């Protein structure tokens, strides 16, 4: 049985390291993933993301540091029963049908006892990823995107407590990516914790609660996305606003005006933006444009990774 304490971290790594020969794939990975969150693990290619995932699953052995997953040591078999995993580069047996792949993984998940996921659960998993009508087709006939959908179904089969998705949207079109976001959110609603390993920053920004940015095997920044991106700067182009109206906006944040028609309010929370506009209008101002000027995750990523990178 997994020794995960109720309420304890789902993933807890302390200085986790992996060296392949003379190459440090992971130097000092220290992070915690809490129950019920969707955690984004970001980094450029070769940053050590997939190595970290392999260590967490026991597919590779750490050369330094310590970690637990679901409260158990890395690679613990009982813990692995509660983990769903979508590998980065994978191809299921091309001669198996989609439904048979899921049946195989349902049986493998239950090797230590218990009944495999029932047929209804397999039907549900296929339906969730939009493969119900291809359930009887050989995997070898699937496009890369369809294989990735099948991989998602395998990872989510049986409602695992931890879902590790390694680049789950890399082969998907925009519709498929939207589907994945919905699937990930549903998994969280069903009680799963999700570790999303990706370099597609807009995907991560839309779906994750917290992120860690990793490069050269080290965590360069981590935290809630809102905290990492800093305060929202709301810029409004307004005319005919009396000075008293400006005073009334101070409750939303620090107000600055420039020589033109633009005023900037720093520190506005997203929910207050409509109220800011309403307050301006009530004070007699005429609003011509509104711009939420917060930085993006991509800008933060480029800033953080760019500061340390010395790639050729």
């Amino acid at each position, binding site marked *: 049985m997994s020794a995960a304490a109720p309420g304890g971290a789902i993933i807890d790594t302390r200085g986790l390291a992996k060296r392949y020969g003379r190459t440090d794939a992971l130097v000092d990975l220290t992070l915690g993933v809490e129950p019920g969150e969707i955690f984004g693990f970001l980094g450029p290619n070769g940053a050590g993301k997939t190595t970290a995932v392999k260590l967490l699953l026991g597919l590779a052995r750490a050369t330094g540091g310590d970690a637990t997953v679901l409260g158990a040591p890395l690679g613990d*078999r009982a813990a692995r029963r509660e983990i769903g995993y979508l590998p980065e580069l994978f*191809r299921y047996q091309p001669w198996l049908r989609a439904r048979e792949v899921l049946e195989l993984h349902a049986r493998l998940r239950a090797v230590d006892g218990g009944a495999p996921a029932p047929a209804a659960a397999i039907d549900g998993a296929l339906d969730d990823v939009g493969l119900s009508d291809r359930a009887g087709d050989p995997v070898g006939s699937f496009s890369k995107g369809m294989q990735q959908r099948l991989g998602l179904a395998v990872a989510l089969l049986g409602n695992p407590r931890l879902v590790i998705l390694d680049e789950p949207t890399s082969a998907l079109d925009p519709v498929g990516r939207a589907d994945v976001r919905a699937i990930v959110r549903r998994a969280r609603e069903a009680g799963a914790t999700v570790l999303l390993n990706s370099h597609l920053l807009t995907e991560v920004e839309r779906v994750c609660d917290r992120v860690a940015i990793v490069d050269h095997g080290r965590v360069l920044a981590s935290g809630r996305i809102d905290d990492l991106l800093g305060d929202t700067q709301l810029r409004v182009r307004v005319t005919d606003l009396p000075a008293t109206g400006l005073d009334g906006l101070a409750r939303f944040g620090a107000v600055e005006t420039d020589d033109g028609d633009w005023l900037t309010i720093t520190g506005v929370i997203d929910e207050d933006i409509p109220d800011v506009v309403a307050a301006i209008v009530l004070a007699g101002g005429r609003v011509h444009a509104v711009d939420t000027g917060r930085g993006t995750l991509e800008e933060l990523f480029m800033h953080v990774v760019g500061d340390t990178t010395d790639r050729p």
Partner: protein
Amino acid sequence: MRAILIIARLTVAETARRRILAVLFALTVVSVALTTWGIERLVTLARDGGTPDIEIVLGVSQVQILVAFMFSFVLAMTAAFLGAPAIAADLESGVAHAILARPIRRADLIVGRWLGLVVVIAAYAAASGLLDIAAVRLVSGYTPPQPLLAVVFLAAQAVVLLTFAMLMSTRLPAIAGGAICVVLFGLGWMAGVFAGIGRFFDAGPLVAAAEASRWLLPSDGLWRGTIYSLEPQLVVAGAISGAGEAADANPFFASAPPPATFLAWSVAWIVVVLVLAVVSLRRRDL
């Protein structure tokens, strides 16, 4: 055990779905049909020419051993080329990563794959060997002394190569592992020939080296078991009285069955190599 059986069943299903079984069966039927037709022609011509029955039996038994060698070669190649990619290809495609992230041991994957392929190889050895023996009996009336034992030795030889191929598969790409197995199979066969020649010339070091290599890879020793099970005693007695120990230099002759110690060693060898394969995969980063 449950995981081993799941993987073994998956492996057997894979060989069936990928038409490996169908191809092997079809080739076996064609091979048996052609060789049986040849034997029937030879027997008919010999009988028409007034050849004594005893000489016909001797001739048929020798042709049957040659046919058995063909099946032994096909089985060895099948074992090498099923075993060599059994783990390597799964690692390359990521199939192994998805499976080993489940709560199964790496030993389950190795032993399950091995067990499934042993079933396939044993079934092929039984089908091809017994079909050939039955067909030869039908056209010539000749049945070898120990047909079932011959099939067991035929399968055991292939299992030795399969096990070695799986060890290679934990570390080497499929093509490299398969090539090594084929080369070692050939070397083992040649070692048997050299051992016989060495004995004739009383070349102690040559005999010792050849014998050592036969124990390092026991495939040729088991092949001699197949031969001995197919030989009429008349052939054994005649060859020994004519050529003495040098008769064993003939790769299609065996003067005695494999000793019990050799058989015990062969079983231990398979177990040890399988354990090495497990250890090799367990120590590997995927």
